[in-house]
């Protein structure tokens, strides 16, 4: 496909070119190409297209970019590698195909990583998300000593055993782009693949945001309001699930309120991350908050199995 790609779209020269190459690659493999979920999440896994769709028996293949917020990783734009907002590229294939490793390696080749000159390795890394009640086995994928992706066979999500098991790939897009562009500072990434006056860098797009959000996450976010938001989201999630359950019991048929309830679970999780960044959560309370989010996730997972997409 390279002959059709103009220079400014080359994944080794352009951040958006890298993203579009991955989109094209996974579209060719039969994935639904989704757009990012329109809520603040800590990782691409939180997107309902992964969390909820990995539950139940229905096959599913999707790929998408997901902006990921990690409030505690903010560095005021001063660290060349750490960001409180970055992009993950997420692929979910259910059931996991037998050639998933080969498909993954094909995607690296598509973005310009030649396996005959690079050292690509699958290094043990068991994935666990305590807030999602999820775990899986897999690897971090190394390219010349750098972790460029996470590769996981989901075993349990929202406290439910996965049947069938999904394969999940998560690419850290900035890191991968830095690698293929040969750049040591994320803000120096070429975003649009143009040169000269037309060149837009990652810093042009995101440096100010990193500075402002770092101040917000660490200094200004109103902890009193956040604590209330957490409780509100938690209460709303539970209320919506109860409403859907009652309707289903009364009228028969599926649960019809899972996705809105799950949005509130996502919200609670993000608010918790902000509170954590503000340093107002003690280690003992921390565990407690994680358990509260997890019980929302588990309740959503259970309800999902009562929906049509959940296989009911």
């Amino acid at each position, binding site marked *: 496909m390279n002959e059709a790609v103009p220079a400014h779209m080359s994944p080794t020269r352009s951040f958006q070119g890298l993203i579009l190459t991955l989109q094209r690659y996974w579209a060719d493999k039969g994935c639904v190409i989704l757009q990012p979920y329109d809520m603040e999440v800590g990782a691409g896994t939180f997107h309902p297209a992964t969390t909820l769709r990995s539950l139940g028996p229905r096959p599913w293949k999707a790929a998408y970019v997901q902006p990921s917020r990690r409030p505690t990783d903010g560095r005021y734009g001063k660290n060349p*590698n750490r960001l409180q907002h970055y992009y993950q590229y997420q692929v979910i294939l259910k059931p996991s195909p037998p050639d998933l490793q080969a498909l993954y390696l094909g995607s690296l080749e598509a973005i310009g990583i030649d396996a005959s000159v*690079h050292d690509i390795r699958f290094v*043990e890394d068991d994935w666990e998300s305590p807030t999602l009640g999820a775990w899986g086995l*897999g690897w971090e994928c190394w390219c*010349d000593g*750098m972790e460029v992706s996470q590769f996981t066979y989901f*075993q349990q999500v929202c406290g439910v055993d*996965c*049947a069938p098991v999904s394969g999940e790939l998560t690419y850290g897009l900035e890191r991968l782009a830095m690698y293929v562009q040969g750049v040591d500072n994320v803000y120096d990434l070429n975003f649009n693949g143009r040169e000269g006056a037309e060149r837009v860098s990652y810093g042009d797009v995101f440096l100010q945001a990193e500075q402002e959000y770092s101040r917000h996450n660490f200094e200004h976010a109103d902890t009193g309001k956040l604590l209330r938001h957490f409780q509100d989201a938690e209460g709303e999630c539970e209320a919506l699930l109860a409403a859907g359950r009652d309707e289903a019991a009364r009228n028969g048929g599926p649960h019809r309120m899972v996705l809105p309830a799950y949005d509130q679970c996502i919200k609670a999780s993000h608010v918790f991350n902000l509170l954590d960044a503000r340093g107002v959560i003690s280690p*003992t309370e921390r565990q407690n908050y994680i358990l509260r989010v997890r019980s929302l996730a588990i309740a959503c997972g259970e309800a999902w199995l009562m929906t049509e997409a959940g296989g009911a």
Partner: protein
Amino acid sequence: MPDLLIELFSEEIPARMQARAAEDLKRLVTDGLVEAGLTYEGAKGFATPRRLALTVHGVTARSADVKEERKGPRVGAPEKALEGFLRSAGLASIDDAKIESDPKKGDFYVAVIEKPGRAAEEIVAELLPQVIRNFPWPKSMRWGAASAPKDSRFADADALGTGSLRWVRPLRSILCMFGPETEDPEIVSFRVGDIESGNVTYGHRFMAPDAIRVRRFDDYVPKLEAAKVVLDPERRRNIIATEAKNLAFAQGFEVVEDAGLIDETAGLVEWPVVLMGRFDEAFLEIPEEVIRLTIRQNQKCFVLRGADGALTNRFLLVSNIEARDGGKEIIAGNERVIAARLSDARFFYEQDLATPLGEWGAKLEAVTFHDKLGTQAERVARIATLAGALAPVVDAKPEEAERAAKLAKADLPTGMVGEFPELQGVMGRYYAKAQGEAANVADAIRDHYKPQGPGDAVPSEPVAMAVALADKLDTLTGFWAIDEKPTGSKDPFALRRAALGVIRIVLENGLRLPLLPLFSKRLDETTAADLLSFFADRLKVHLRDQGARHDLIDAVFALPGQDDLLMVVRRVEALAGLLASDDGQNLLTSYRRAANILRAEEKKDGKSYTGEPDHALIHEKGEAAERELLAVIENVEAHVEKHLKLEDFSGAMASLAELRPAVDAFFDHVTVNAEDTNLRENRLKLLNRIREAMHGVADFSKIGG
């Protein structure tokens, strides 16, 4: 005799699980063969990141025929009993059973069951699926279409849901060959999940990914080698160690030895290629420990020392391929990652240095140490007070001990220790030095965690000793106060290690540290006694490891108020010295004789013979040996007491030994159970006196052997 070759080919097996898995495969298969009646001459298991392999040679081709006789019911037994017998013996009719006679029981049926031997192939084909399905991986998983629920309209007909095959990572193919050397071996055919066994394997993932047909172990290993796979992990380790050494040597450097890292890297590659990279020399300003950990832990690379012993700005990486460009890209990539990691580390280091250690320490107020034991800051305050109080015992200045203790945990909230928890103390020392703390205070911050294990040295500098003791004693008394003691194999707060640490610091530095007064500041009498007996147990284990006799330690600890570990050990040593001598052995015999007589008589009479013997009676009516013993014993008691006061336990033991001739003579010439009841009572009291005198030094009743 035929050989068996098995290979289980999968996606990447975690490095840390490979060696164990190769052994498990060997054990499970060979045990299974033997159980099925086969024998074999030898077996060896192998592992690479993508395969477990096993060769078993000299396997018998068939198991032997077995003839078994099973006794049944008597002739004429009820129909039900006969039916049951036929069923269990697998007979079609009772006419197939023979009848035997027993003189007592009469005639009864006997079934003769003949089990013909089975072909080894058949046994293997039955055994392997069981071994694979029940393989003891520390963690295993399901995968793929087979993991879909079996009753779902979305799944294949052969889906098994959560009951589908589990393996450490997806299992992709199985090779299983069996046959004699002289002929072409054949595929042992079986099916596990959706995998059919065969004669095919695959080479290196990138350099030779094609299928390879294999006949037996002898062509398996070289064919893999040609396909860029070194099967034997030992060989991969040797290649890594040798290449690393040579590369380093060529530059005049030396590899910082790291056997654990060699093992791990050998488990991450099928075709090891060692390459050298470098990083900016400016990073060498970062503490060496940080550089090593960053490079080792995150990047699994080796660091190098120069001729002067200092770290150099080079590292060695172990890659999995012979790259087309000779490794240029791989080195460049690794260099960039290491530079990024080191600049992260430098960022933490500089950030940490920008804040005084005391201020970092203040953050411990917000950190809980344990729900019932308060915050880390409260703990630090307790340790500081205790360290100050202990300072005179170890010849430290109290203000230095307190200062070091106050800073000892201050590095816990720093960025660097957050990143590398194992650098606790090490970083505190650097930060303390940087802000001009005294060298012994800074060293104590690092060394107060010592000893971290049986092989670790104990602190020997006074300030470090004071803080180390205070830290461990605070932990022990704290957890005893809230009744969180180790049970069985559970010791989540490493209290055994803390007690052993106190014991070693005290003994190896010759410290006088009575423990009970320290315990009683925080614990009631019973709990303090319980903690002391915990120390006694740890001391026993410690001394036993050093070859001391268990019963001698018991004999000393049975004395009241033994809370001074150094004195306990001195006494045990003196006791061992005494018992090694003839005098000591004879004295022990006499002691036992006296103690046995006393026990028997006291039991018979229902009273104990304590109290002073009647001296006048002895002088008037007693025998010469009895008078002699009384005189000697008074002398010995005085000598023992004098020596004990001086803590001269060998002297006390030697004094005890003076008893021996008089005691021997007493038993030779005096009848304890005399007719005269007054004389008898007096003699028993005399024996009791011997027992008491000896118990002043150790409880000899606890001594065995």
